[in-house]
């Protein structure tokens, strides 16, 4: 396939109009010794028919969650995606547009982002939300970076129950910027709040908590942390699961200054880890420090309501090295998916999804408890770990039965329960685990 539309005679005509004969004359500014002078070794070009076969072949070498019940979570979740989401995301005016720099031509994109920002504010209770970040981990890292800039302090205190991958990303960002990250140890699935409070001092830029935490548990001491960190004028950053916000307290309810998280659950497919959607919301005081694009409402010359990229003095293309972040491309289409998803499910739908996840998890827990498995006695939302003598063997046994098992934690498997799971699937999963453990 070639997507270059001009046939050879048209190419000759164009070259001729410029007084050129050979297309290679357009490359004489490249020093001779740098010319590749051979064809790239990428194989022959494929027709669309061949390409379709090739892609199908690759896809079929994978086991899709469409064919196997999936109990994996740990930061990426198999929630149901309503058909409307995929339909809207196939509108090529959205798909093939660039960042909406030209407001007059981009009102559709701008308004959809404005609606997305509004919905994330609704969910989190925060006052400002940006147009999206690259994923949950980088969003958390950028939140810490903002906290460091805003407080002119260097120390971040991160709960040890935060998704370890987020912590890894945070460490990479922090090393670059010279930020000190102290990770607070955890016991029995919860971080040591007393230890964190002990460490909070006048050098603390922010305390960072995940809720529900990586293990699916609900951290009980957020109020104490909030009081302690705000007392020294540090910030409170909370990473949340947006689905949980159908029933659980929002970051604003806990007194967070910044709320971040992974928005993949809101209408985006698992896609082997990306593209995902980092959301980033903050209180109004931090508005002018928020990284990335912000869409604002304004008026056009005729006084008609209009939307536009605003507060661009924060951004790299205006401020260069003084920008609040280097972010340029974001995950706009994933944010659109989230906006469509939340429009379809609405407040009651989101609540029902959150409740169903929780009920399924509670059912699984009671079955496991009855079967004598070792479980933590801590409130959870839709995910919890099960201690096993051989987690790997358990997962292999599950896979043999056509079930994608849990996330391996060393001495346990972390199981997630979305609204897609059923009683039957859970019963089977528990039975297989019983067989392995016996």
């Amino acid at each position, binding site marked *: 396939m070639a997507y270059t539309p001009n046939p050879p005679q048209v190419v000759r005509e164009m070259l001729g109009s410029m007084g050129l004969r050979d297309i290679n004359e357009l490359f004489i500014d490249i020093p001779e010794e740098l010319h590749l002078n051979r064809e790239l070794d990428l194989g022959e070009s494929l027709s669309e028919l061949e390409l379709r076969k090739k892609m199908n072949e690759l896809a079929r070498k994978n086991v899709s969650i469409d064919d196997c019940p999936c109990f994996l979570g740990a930061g990426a979740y198999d929630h149901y995606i309503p058909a409307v989401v995929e339909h809207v995301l196939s*509108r090529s005016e959205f798909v093939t547009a660039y*960042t909406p720099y030209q407001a007059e031509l981009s009102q559709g994109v701008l308004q959809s982002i404005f609606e997305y920002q509004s919905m994330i504010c609704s969910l989190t209770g925060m006052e400002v*939300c940006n147009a999206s970040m690259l994923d949950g981990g980088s969003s958390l890292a950028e939140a810490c970076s903002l906290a460091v800039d805003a407080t002119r302090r260097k120390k971040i205190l991160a709960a040890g129950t935060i998704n370890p991958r987020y912590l890894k990303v945070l460490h990479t960002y922090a090393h670059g910027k010279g930020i000190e990250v102290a990770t607070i140890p955890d016991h029995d699935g919860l971080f040591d709040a007393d230890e964190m409070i002990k460490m909070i001092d006048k050098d603390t830029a922010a305390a960072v908590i995940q809720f529900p935490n990586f293990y699916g548990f609900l951290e009980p001491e957020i109020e104490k942390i909030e009081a302690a960190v705000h007392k020294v004028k540090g910030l409170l950053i909370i990473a949340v699961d947006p689905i949980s916000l159908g029933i659980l307290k929002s970051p604003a309810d806990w007194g967070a200054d910044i709320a971040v998280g992974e928005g993949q659950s809101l209408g985006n497919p698992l896609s*082997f880890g990306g593209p995902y959607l980092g959301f980033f919301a903050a209180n109004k005081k931090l508005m002018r420090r928020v990284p990335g694009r912000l869409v604002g409402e*304004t008026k056009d*010359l*005729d006084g008609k309501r209009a939307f536009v990229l605003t507060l661009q003095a924060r951004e790299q293309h205006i401020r260069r090295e003084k920008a609040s972040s280097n972010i340029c491309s974001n995950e706009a289409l994933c944010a659109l998916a989230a906006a*469509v998803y939340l429009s379809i499910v609405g407040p009651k739908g989101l609540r029902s999804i959150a409740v169903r996840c929780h009920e399924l998890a509670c059912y699984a827990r009671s079955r496991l408890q009855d079967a004598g498995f070792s479980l933590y006695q801590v409130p959870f939302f839709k995910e919890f770990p099960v201690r096993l003598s051989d987690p790997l063997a358990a997962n292999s046994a599950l896979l043999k039965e056509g079930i994608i098992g849990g996330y391996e934690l060393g001495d346990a498997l972390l199981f997630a329960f979305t609204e897609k799971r059923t009683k039957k699937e859970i019963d089977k999963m528990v039975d297989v685990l019983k067989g392995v453990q016996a």
Partner: protein
Amino acid sequence: MSKLIFERSVPGSSAFSLPEGDVPSVELQDSLQGFLRESDPPLPEVSEVEVVRHFTELSTKAFGVDSGMYPLGSCTMKYNPKINEWAARLPGIAGLHPDQPEETVQGALELMYELEQMLCEITGMNRYTLQPASGAHGEMTGASLIKAYHEQRQDFRRKKMVVPDSSHGTNPATAHMLGFELVEVRSNERGLVDVDDLCSLMSDEIAGLMLTNPNTLGLFEEEILEISKVVHEAGGLLYYDGANLNAVMGVARPGDMGFDIVHLNLHKTFGTPHGGGGPGAGPVGVKEFLVDLLPIPLVGKKDGQYCLDYDVPHSIGKVQSFYGNFGVMAKAYAYIKALGGKGIREACRHAVLNANYLRHNLSDFYEITYDRLCKHEFVASAVRQKKECGVTALDVAKRLIDYGYHPPTIYFPLIVDEGLMIEPTETETKERLDGFIEAMQEIAKEAKENPELVKEAPTNAPIRRVDEVTAARRPILKWK
């Protein structure tokens, strides 16, 4: 004006239902006591048909490559093949959890492994990480590698990063994020890096030079081998910002030019759509001596099985939670497979042909800064129009909207006054290019004869120009 989705809300409307539950219901007040929110989040309540109509209406107020020519300089807005969209939505591609056992994702890992090899071949590098999710994210990864390289050598003096005065805003922003002190190298009268100036900036404090080639003026850095020598002799590393790779792919390779680190924009060069701002993907390639520093995991192959390889001794860590924007990788993979080696070079040649054709035909009406052989893009200027008729680059851009074209990038690079940065890409027909030339000619004429018409533009769009000042002074960032 479209209503906001919130303004379409009718309490009690619903577009969603779950199957009947078959597990016992739970008393939330017991199981989640102290953690429950007091009321539902204020989301809109809209029926399915109205949700569909709402977003369909919004889509008619958006403009994509499928809507028309999009000569947005530096953004490479080429046609996005539809088969690739189909491929990325396959259940065996979109329906994979990132933590599935390796034996259940062999196809995905094979795709990544092969994509890495193809990117190595195209750019002349030894290995790639596919993890960065955007170009700027790739830059951040690359700059972290530069920092880690010097630190590993116990060389802690190298705190300065050099970028040209014509660079993308992300280059200095990235360098700053990594704690580098920024040093700007001048462009010479030919629009290229001033090598004498570069030499004078070199010292044992230099960490590296970040460069696009061709640069943001669309000009090939002809002295690149000398530049490479200067930077390397001073102990710095050479970083390639791949935003403009479309201009040389298949013809020349950054690896052969002396670059140590390369980031690519799959969403520019390899035909994946921009999605109204993202997602993109920004893989980073390195020469052999930097492989041990790459983010974890890499994609490997062991005993005929593909695997995720976490054994990277001095890795900088992770920059994204998982392995990168896999869905975007699948589209880029399909794109490269469709074109093959020959097609990649053809795409490049046609992109350069189209750019030069536009430059050649616009030079009678607009000043072309550095009017000579360009690569995939060039920078025209409205200085003449501004001086003679008070019509600015912004006005010209807005008037183009009335003619059905997406405007070029304006006021960039910063070293050109009233800049109009034009990149047609290889996927435009001669007829479209001629139409664009005609529109630009017409606008130049209007600027002389009826400048108000141009300054008032657009008049043929869903809205007129917007009040950006009030938007920034009294920001309204959400529905109340």
